[in-house]
């Protein structure tokens, strides 16, 4: 679902775009584990978690005409950390599904990552595990798809062999 995002010219994205893409896909248990200090604290809400629909657009082969693929359920929120100053960075999160808690924790992580002092820590405790988890998930999906793969070249060659056998 994020194929194009992960592979094509991802070097042109800003650091924040990269980690927000990771946080959007991070499962809630991993977020909870890395952010235990913020689990029980109510942040200063700018926009409480709210669930809505978004239209996903696609292009055939990534280059064709845009078309509406369908709607997805998205939960979003925006917050400042508890005890943060009025001009502190704003944490924003958009996640698929209806899990308000996941959106909340992803926004907390986004707010923390904007603080250079915390970034290195979180890179190790949160982003690296999430990256590993996503790679693992992708590898599993790839392996599952591979089992149903049909190699048409081989089929063609076998057919050719058969014909040769008949003529000889």
């Amino acid at each position: 679902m994020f194929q194009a995002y992960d592979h094509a010219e991802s070097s042109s994205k800003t650091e924040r775009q990269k980690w927000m893409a990771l946080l959007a896909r991070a499962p809630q248990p991993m977020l909870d584990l890395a952010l235990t200090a913020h689990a029980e604290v109510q942040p200063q809400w700018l926009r409480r978690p709210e669930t809505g629909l978004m239209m996903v657009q696609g292009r055939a082969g990534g280059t064709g005409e845009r078309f509406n693929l369908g709607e997805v359920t998205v939960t979003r929120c925006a917050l400042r950390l508890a005890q943060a100053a009025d001009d502190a960075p704003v944490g924003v999160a958009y996640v698929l599904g209806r899990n308000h808690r996941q959106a909340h924790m992803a926004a907390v992580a986004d707010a923390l990552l904007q603080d250079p002092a915390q970034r290195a820590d979180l890179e190790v405790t949160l982003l690296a595990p999430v990256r590993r988890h996503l790679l693992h998930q992708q590898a599993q999906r790839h392996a599952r798809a591979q089992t149903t793969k049909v190699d048409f070249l081989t089929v063609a060659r076998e057919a050719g062999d058969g014909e040769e056998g008949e003529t000889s």
Partner: protein
Amino acid sequence: MNTEVLQNLVAGFDHEAYGSQAVFRTALNALSHPGRALDLPLNTALPRQGHAAAAALLLGLVDSDTALWLSPGLASSDAATWLRFHTGCTWVSDPSEAHFIWVAQGDALPELQSLRQGTDAYPDQSATCVIEVQSLHSEVTETGGWTLQGPGILGQCKLQVQGLPADFSKQWARNHASFPCGVDVFLATAAHIVGLPRTTRLFTSEEA
């Protein structure tokens, strides 16, 4: 919206449903009783620019289907970002395209006739102006105030406003004459609003 824009953002209504309902109720009251200065409930965090009552009123009225025009003093301010973040409204640069107009105190008011007037079939599609003024008084003793007449006013009532352009009453007479088309106006100070629907007739003290 990028990080810098979000930097000074503040929260919206403390409780979205109750806050906006209270504002809407007050707005309805203001239009039902033209010329009466009403306390607007301010159950919301507020941006630094703009009058509190005007900001809260627009936060309650505007939504993602409405186009908003902001006077130059507000267009590049936190108030603009704040409204767009919380309501999802669109900004337009041409006042004649807007459903809602927010004019900051000290900024020039666009000619009322140049705004969206609605049509005879759909007079509700006209613009609503929120104009910030310096002060509003319903009880006028000195000269220079207005006398208001029309639906919602028993007999007549007085209103004294400071901070409107000198030719406002002339513009208003033309606006009233184009009924059922024409714009509706809210005048806002820091804490009060006054509604001036298009049905209201307005006389300066010399004419009365």
